[in-house]
């Protein structure tokens, strides 16, 4: 990197306040560090950490059903409600089921394309493919869900393309939710798996081939076991992001509800923030459980 030397004239030393502050700062790295950290850390702690902590506390509050006022005495009523009411169990199981299915679909789709990108494509093609995979990741989440609403609609392109084969659009429902979510989170799964495959040495696979293993056998016994942490890293994204979704379900899910819908209704229409906070704990607890379970595989270093 070149530095423009023509402009790099250092102004002469003056006895100004700025100059004094500057020499104070040069002598004290700890002071410099505190000044750098003060603003961003205050912001993140005040806005975010405090908000998350407050969320946990307010799950223990209740709402007076007559006045709609929040009662700030701590009780376990909300937690009792979400663990005993069958509605929450049904919706939680449905949400986990959808998230698991989305993850399986994404991993199955991501494996061949990531393998092609990492091991077969030329360096130039690889660069282009990485950009091609990354770009849709940045297109709006809402637009992607909306796009699938158009694709799967009655008289839409899916029906048009499938009708010659005697098939029909799945319409709006849980199938559409799984398709759309798998589509939205796919780049998040491809990228860690691609990165993981790049770290698998070609020589291992070649050696397996030299010793008589078929491509399929060396894939199954050499590449896949080495790839497990990367696959789990990818699954963390698709699983976690699907658990919290409620927009996609609204747009392509028909009348189905997921945990996110229950949270949203309780924040808005039902005006029961404490119950919403308690429901939001379900995906958090599931995610913490999942992360703890996979921590030993080394997946977290692959994120």
């Amino acid at each position, binding site marked *: 990197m070149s530095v423009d030397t023509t402009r790099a004239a250092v102004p002469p030393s003056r006895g100004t306040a700025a100059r004094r502050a500057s020499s104070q700062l040069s002598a004290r790295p700890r002071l410099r560090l505190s000044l750098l950290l003060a603003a961003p850390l205050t912001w993140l702690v005040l806005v975010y950490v405090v908000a998350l902590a407050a969320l946990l506390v307010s799950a223990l509050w209740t709402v007076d059903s007559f006045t709609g006022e929040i009662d700030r005495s701590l009780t376990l009523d909300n937690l009792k409600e979400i663990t005993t009411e069958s509605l929450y169990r049904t919706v939680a199981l449905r949400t986990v089921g959808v998230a698991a299915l989305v993850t399986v679909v994404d991993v199955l789709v991501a494996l061949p*394309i990531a393998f*092609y990108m990492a091991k077969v494509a030329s360096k130039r093609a690889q660069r282009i493919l990485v950009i091609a995979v990354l770009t849709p990741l940045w297109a709006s989440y809402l637009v992607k869900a909306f796009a699938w609403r158009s694709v799967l609609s009655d008289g839409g392109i899916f029906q048009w393309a499938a009708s010659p084969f005697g098939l029909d659009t799945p319409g709006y429902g849980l199938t559409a939710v799984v398709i759309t979510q798998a589509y939205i989170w796919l780049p998040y799964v491809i990228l860690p798996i691609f990165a993981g495959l790049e770290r698998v040495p070609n020589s291992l696979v070649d050696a397996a081939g030299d010793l008589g293993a078929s491509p399929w056998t060396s894939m199954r016994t050499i590449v896949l076991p080495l790839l497990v942490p990367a696959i789990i890293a990818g699954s963390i994204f698709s699983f976690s992001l699907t658990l919290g979704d409620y927009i996609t379900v609204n747009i392509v899910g028909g009348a189905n509800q997921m945990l996110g819908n229950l949270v949203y209704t309780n924040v808005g229409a039902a005006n029961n923030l404490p119950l919403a906070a308690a429901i939001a704990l379900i995906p958090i607890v599931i995610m913490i459980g999942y992360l703890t379970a996979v921590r030993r595989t080394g997946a977290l270093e692959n994120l």
Partner: protein
Amino acid sequence: MILSSTVRRVLVALTGLVLLVMYLPLVVVVINSFNPSRTLTWPPTGVTLEWWRRAWESEGARDAVVSSVEVAVASTVIALVLGTLMSLALQRYRFFGKSSVNLLVILPIALPGIVTGIALNNAFRGILGIQLGILTVIVAHATFCIVTVFNNVQARLRRMGGSFEEASADLGAGVWTTFRLVTFPQLRSALLAGGLLAFALSFDEIIVTTFTAGAGTTTLPIWILNNLFRPNQAPVVNVVAVVLILVSILPIWLAQKLSGDTEALR
């Protein structure tokens, strides 16, 4: 790696298929914005600019664009300042709790949007008693935009090392002069790339926005969501969706060109 030509061909076909499925829905939205059919049936029966004209004349959509730009600009500026300070601190110093601070920067984007959304909604409304509005959206967006600036600036700082800054200090330049004449010029393109990404991220965010926007504030994604289920608005929503695709993808291309690597986009 040695692969039989059949396996190779299958892989090429599968890769092509996946890319096709990745881009097809977006292309359908773009084509549908010129589709004269009101119900957006496929295949299109002709080409019309009617919906683009109507979207242009729609006051609600135009107001929403203005709100979105305001929110995106304000949160990008905040994120640029806070993200740069944070990356200078984490890249140039060693201190206790450094990895926790690093995690804290990433957390707002790593947790599901609904958790961030309801936590902030609860903090603003339930605890601070603030009326939700455009300011609360800006605070929320700035919080998760910090990470994009942070990633870009930190990658640049790592690559450029500290020797220029040390040389500048050895030659008698103070802290400000060194930052103004040595550090900042080298960071400029990384800041631009990070800022563009933050802008794009804020412009099309929907989940956190719905929880922090209140009734009076309509950003473009919220406008889409509000009008999505109104049958006679469907074609206009479609046009706005195309605008949203362009506004979010163009900055990414620019940012990618500026930062010169694909690392910055993750």
